[in-house]
């Protein structure tokens, strides 16, 4: 278990608005909702201003009248109270509606973006996955998308509106009393600057905390998971010490965050409160000189209070915006990756029945790498087996990858039943081919899910037949739940041989026209070895197959053997012919 964060990534990005434009297609379907939200925000702003106004009317109207001994309307206060209640109910309902609308629409925008990103990632060629660690890609569809989520469901509208609000309140303040407003106007930038500067520090140090915490948790996981090893070597004290050291680092990071946060809170407080007292002084002076009434003063005070919240939050909003920009840059960077292989404009159906495979002078180089295949030219007739042998790194596995178009050759052609692969429907092509890789990959799910790869079109009976054919039925039946037994931790609870058999069954269940098999090299216990050899014999029988072979028994029965060396076919022929040649193959066989 590991929770280490991605360290190379910064939340800093230039505030480039072009990314926002690219979000538009995702937002567009819900634009009505977002426009409604803006209207709601505007309306609730007006209602927010109404409350303090009503208080002022009460203070300057009936109350002031009473103090001056003038007759007052006893019902005026009730009317004002009723109005205030109406304003409150309106504001609360608008707030509720706004929250729900933005959450619903925002979440759907994010969902669309996430699924689109995921789908696009699965349409990128293997070359992309060679260059990008899968952990990083997971971050793209989770953390990065979440950052945009924050931007969309609260960030953009809210911060846009906060700015409007600040301007709006300031305008109203100027209308109420220019002197007081001037004080506010002078103080606002200071508060904003303090907020921005310290919020940023809090954020930076909090990122450090998360990093340290992740390292520490990962270490704790290892310390617990590896407790037997520590025990065997009597090294528990050393492990405890190492943990303590990481623990102290995390603590120090927390202390730094807390210090920054405390400073942020205190400094913003100092700035706001000093401004408030200045308003108190100048406003009070205005009351003394008769320039303003007590009611106006209270109204002003309450408005300023409304201003202080968005100002305080501005730093935080800016940070949200920044990380959202950084994330959208990364997300759209992936969406800009070209799909590979490029689908045919008018794809031919991929055909059916026993397949014939042909390589014509195929060359291949991985992106930016040296060529790994040169002039590969061979044919696998229907129903026959061709074996590829040769040292590791000779290019055998690459040949297999070209058959399913996980890569496309840089020169030459690969043909299935005489049709070049790029002209065929990709989906159909891949459905005719089943691949058994060297390393078995099992998904979280049941045995059934893993054999049919979540394809309900393959019924249980077919899965049972496939398991029986490869000789896996007995062990599957012995599992608690049989076919429906859960596969845990990617099959870690199954033996190597059992996992291989599932991989065989997976290939057989799709009833392929061409079987592509990369024989496992790992040395395993003899029981597993026997299982695998037996299973392999069963699935190869009578099928067109292309096999990367490591075992003599697999090669001997092949109709054609290709000896691949340094990316070329160095020798070809049957077992007997190649032995007679006394070349590389003969040396390999004789050890």
């Amino acid at each position, binding site marked *: 278990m590991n929770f280490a964060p991605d360290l190379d990534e910064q939340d800093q990005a230039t505030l480039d608005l072009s990314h926002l434009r690219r979000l538009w297609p995702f937002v567009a379907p819900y634009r009505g909702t977002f426009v409604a939200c803006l209207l709601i925000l505007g309306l609730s702003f007006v209602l927010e201003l109404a409350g303090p106004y009503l208080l002022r009317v009460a203070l300057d109207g009936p*109350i002031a009248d009473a103090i001056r001994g003038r007759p*007052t309307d006893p019902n005026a206060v009730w009317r004002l109270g009723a109005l205030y209640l109406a304003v409150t109910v309106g504001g609360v309902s608008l707030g509720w509606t706004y929250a729900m609308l933005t959450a619903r629409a925002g979440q759907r925008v994010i969902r669309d973006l996430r699924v689109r990103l995921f789908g696009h990632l699965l349409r990128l060629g293997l070359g992309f996955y060679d260059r990008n660690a899968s952990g990083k890609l997971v971050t793209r569809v989770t953390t990065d998308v979440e950052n945009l989520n924050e931007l969309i469901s609260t960030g953009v509208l809210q911060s846009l509106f906060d700015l409007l609000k600040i301007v709006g309140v300031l305008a109203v303040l100027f209308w109420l009393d220019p002197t007081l407003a001037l004080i506010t106007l002078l103080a606002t930038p200071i508060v904003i600057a303090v907020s921005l500067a310290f919020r940023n520090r809090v954020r930076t140090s909090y990122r450090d905390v998360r990093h340290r915490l992740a390292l520490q948790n990962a270490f704790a996981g290892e310390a617990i998971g590896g407790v037997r*090893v520590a025990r065997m070597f009597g090294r528990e004290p050393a492990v405890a010490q190492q943990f303590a050291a990481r623990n102290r680092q995390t603590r120090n990071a927390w202390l730094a965050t*807390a210090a920054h946060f*405390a400073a942020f809170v205190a400094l913003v407080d100092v700035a706001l*409160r000093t401004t408030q*007292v200045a308003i108190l002084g100048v406003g009070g002076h205005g009351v003394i000189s008769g320039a303003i009434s007590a009611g106006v003063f209270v109204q002003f005070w309450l408005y300023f209070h409304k201003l202080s919240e968005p100002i305080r939050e501005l730093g935080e909003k800016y940070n949200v915006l920044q990380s959202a920009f950084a994330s959208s840059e990364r997300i759209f960077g992936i969406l800009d990756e070209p799909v590979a292989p490029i689908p045919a404009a008018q794809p031919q159906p991929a055909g059916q029945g026993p397949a014939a495979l042909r390589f014509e002078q195929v060359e291949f180089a991985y992106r930016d790498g040296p060529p790994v295949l040169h002039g590969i030219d061979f044919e696998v007739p229907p129903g026959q087996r061709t074996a590829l042998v040769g040292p590791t*790194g000779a290019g055998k596995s690459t040949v297999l990858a070209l058959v399913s178009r996980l890569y496309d050759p840089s020169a030459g052609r690969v043909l299935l039943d005489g049709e070049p692969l790029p002209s065929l429907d990709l989906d159909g092509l891949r459905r005719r081919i089943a691949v058994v890789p060297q390393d078995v990959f099992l998904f979280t799910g049941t045995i059934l899910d893993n054999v049919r790869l979540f394809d309900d079109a393959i019924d249980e009976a077919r899965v049972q037949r496939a398991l029986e054919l490869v000789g896996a039925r007995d062990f599957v039946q012995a599992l608690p739940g049989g076919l429906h037994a859960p596969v845990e931790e990617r099959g870690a609870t199954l033996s190597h041989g059992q996992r291989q058999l599932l991989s065989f069954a997976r290939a057989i269940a799709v009833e392929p026209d061409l079987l592509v098999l990369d024989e496992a090299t790992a040395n395993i216990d003899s029981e597993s070895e026997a299982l695998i050899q037996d299973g392999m014999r069963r699935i190869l029988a009578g099928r067109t197959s292309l096999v990367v072979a490591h*075992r003599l028994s697999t090669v001997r029965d092949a109709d054609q053997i290709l000896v691949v060396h340094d990316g070329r076919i160095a020798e070809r022929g049957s077992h007997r012919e190649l032995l007679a040649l006394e070349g590389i193959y003969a040396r390999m066989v004789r050890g």
Partner: protein
Amino acid sequence: MHYGDRLVIRLRSFRRVVRLWAGEQRGRVVVGLACVPIAAVLSLLLPRLGGETLDLATRLAGTEGEQVDEFYALCFLVLAVALGETAIRWVARRTLIDASRHAEARLKEELMAHLLRLPVPWFDRARTGDILSRFTQDVELVRFAVGPSMLHGGAALIVIPGGFWFMAQLSPLVTAAAAAAFVLLLGSLALVTPRMHRDSKAVQESIAAISQRAAEAFAGVRVLLWFSRAQRETAAFGRQSDDYVDHSVRLARTRALFNLFIHSCRELVVIGILVLGAREAIAQRLTAGELFELLMLTTVMISPLISISWILALVQRSLAAAERLEELFEVTPEPDVGADADLRGNLAVRNLTFAYPGHETPALRDVSFAIEAGKKLGIVGPVGSGKTTLLALLLRLYAPPRGSVFVDEHDICDIRPSTLRRAFAVAPQDPFLFSDTIQHNVAFGHGDGRDATGIGEAVHASGLDLDLARAPAGLEVVIGERGLTLSGGQKQRVSLARALASSGGTLVLDDTLSAVDHHTERVILQRLRHARQKRAVLVVSHRLSAVRDADLILVLDEGRVVATGTHAELLKNDGYYAAVHRRQEHRDTLEDGPLADGPLADGPLADGPLADGPLADGPLADGPLADGPLADGPLADGPLADGPLEDGS
């Protein structure tokens, strides 16, 4: 659990937390706890001073001169109180939060030190994930109780009653209205807050599921492409994302409800002030300044109210967390007591029968053998025959029955466990390595400050040097999920080197070369013979090649010794051993020259990701959660992530 026991645990957990917090952090705690009420009282004075300032201004309306100075003096007093409160609150925050962080760190440290001393059988039953959540969530909950809840809760305990007292002096009627509204608020928040926890947990679980699905899809992308399952997988991912939308919207609704309650309550109090207060003002029982004071008091009291509702919701969970932690501390560590003999390594096992705790069928039955120090013992047998169990008992990872296992004629039950284990150097079946440099992993077992030549020899003898030759960073390369991914064979070689470099005496190799190919195995076995010299060796192996030169070979089956002897003797017996030997002698591997599929080839040490093409570097290469969203997800932010008590507190 018994009620009395529960009480004892609760008291002990309380004592532990108090010791780590109020005891070890006494200075900070005393200063912090003293500052909290002072700041609270000052914050209550502000509305009163503000109101008086306004009243003074109203009274002075139309006057000039010295009387106005009185007004300015009052303003300066307000400023002094306001800034004083800010400063004192800053001190309280720094001391109390820092104290809670120190206490948290100490708690984690003690917990880890304790866990590492627990007996191995305990770990068989415990799940690593559960233990880790003690470290993350439970410790954070306990910290919450002594940190933020002291800071915010302590203030609330003064501000709320104090606020009412100030209000009551002005207008009992308004106070009654405010009290009613506040009670209503507390009640509704008490209902909403647990829902908020539940919903936000559901959202976190949902995003974790998304992350898990994505991680598998990307790691297994080849399978998805080969079998043309990309579209289907995208559809499934879409459904999972829909699920996330549902949970998120539900959380948003709860949050909106939370805000709605707070907003409504505040406005209700203001309406109370507007209507009831204004009527009293008209009746000349309240001044404008006093009305102003009432409004400001409302503002001051609202956020402590929210804190209280949050603290009430968490305090129960904090207590439960402290108890769960204490339950871990209650588990008795393995007693490290016994004789400190200088062990040479003569080994004798007499009529050893052993069943794992909770199992009825014995894993070993009546096993007896003896081997002198410096000799080589081989143990073979099918899967599940008890080979690894036997080794675990020799190391006393599990307690063997007294009178059955002897080292140098000491019953191992009488030897101090750490002394006993120092007499062995183990390369276990599961070659568990730490995410650290290869150097540190190899040096793990030999204590501090041993010379580098020991490591060099170990690296050579284990065949690890063959791998390192191609890795530019050599021994300094970091392995594990954050660094290089090693193949199974490479891990085994590091584990073997670790055992060889350890200062332990008898070398114990538990199927250590199972993932190593035949050729490399030959090389390593040869080097091992050279390196071990006088060291005794215990070898468990599937492959007979590793044990054929042993002085004694045990054949185990279903926990019994079914045959003993040397290689030659066992072959003559024509039993299991001979049968396996025949099967393994039949060579079926195509190899072209030395090390074809050996250590140079089988992993990323060779040449980076493109080395052996697309099918080579297995789909498990980089752990699914390596840098996934869980990194900064629920475990990182703890249970308080979405609380009103912000991140720094």
